[in-house]
């Protein structure tokens, strides 16, 4: 294994560089996946049938909490990667930890929001609108849930093995995943929530 010390650890071997490129290609596929979900949502958003419409169930407060929490978590994981490049293992683990806590906060808020919808009579089966809405939000929320487990294992591995080309590479790839989830949320926030409440 050839290690190039002129590069950050996560790029230091050819395998590492390929892993990062490969993950970007996966993110390209994820963009297309979310595009199809948004397509379904935009097409069906006005088909509320006898159920509630988007203007009736959307509330600004949980949306604001989710948006600022996720935005901040995207910032803290960026700081985590920066700390990793400085070789500051403890600072890196702290930033990753904060990121995951914010992620958990996001998820709890979203689950409470879904429960509110349920009590207001907007379930998965209510209308084409609620089905498309919950499939889109649920796919994003599912990604966040997966990210919480993935990130926890990354922190544990860094704690156990220290910052090596291998663990740095995994941590960097996880940061790409987390930033991507924030990008998807920006579109959900703008074109599902704000558009629906306009």
């Amino acid at each position, binding site marked *: 294994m050839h290690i190039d010390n002129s*590069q950050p650890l996560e*790029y230091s071997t050819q395998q590492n*560089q390929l892993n*990062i*490129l490969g993950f*970007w*290609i996966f*993110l*390209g*596929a994820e*963009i*297309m996946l*979310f*595009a*199809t979900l*948004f*397509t379904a949502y*935009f*097409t069906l958003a006005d088909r509320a049938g006898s159920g509630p419409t988007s203007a009736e169930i959307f509330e*600004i407060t949980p949306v*604001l909490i989710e*948006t*600022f929490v996720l*935005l*901040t978590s*995207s*910032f803290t*994981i*960026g*700081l985590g990667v*920066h*700390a990793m490049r*400085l070789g*500051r293992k403890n*600072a890196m683990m702290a930033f990753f930890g904060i990121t995951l806590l914010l992620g958990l906060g996001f998820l709890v808020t979203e689950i409470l929001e879904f429960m509110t919808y349920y009590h207001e009579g907007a379930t998965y089966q209510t209308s084409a609108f609620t089905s498309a809405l919950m499939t889109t939000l649920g796919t994003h929320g599912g990604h966040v849930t997966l990210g919480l487990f993935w990130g926890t294992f990354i922190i544990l591995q860094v704690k156990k093995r220290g910052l090596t080309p291998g663990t740095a590479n995994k941590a960097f790839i996880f*940061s*790409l995943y987390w*930033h*991507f989830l*924030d*990008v998807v949320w*920006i*579109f959900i*926030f*703008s*074109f599902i929530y*704000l*558009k629906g*409440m*306009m």
Partner: protein
Amino acid sequence: MKELFPAKQVMGFVASLVLTVVALLVYYTDMSFTVGMTILLATAFIQAFLQLVVFMHAGESKDGNSIYTNILYAVFIAVVTVFGSLLILLWDM
């Protein structure tokens, strides 16, 4: 401690907060649907671009060109899928 908060990322974070607040004007002020959607399209795409460049370091390695090409292609397919469907199914063209 200061070295843990690089100016570039702090500025990126502040910029995304500002863009989010601008997007919220759509909710908090009274404006037409067209103006609102124009603002949302602008703030969302600028913010996505900001994440890509500032936080995800898309262009920093020698694979930068391949990464940008791949993302651009994915975004192209996404835009065609969304707007193509809207054109046929909702806008009756």
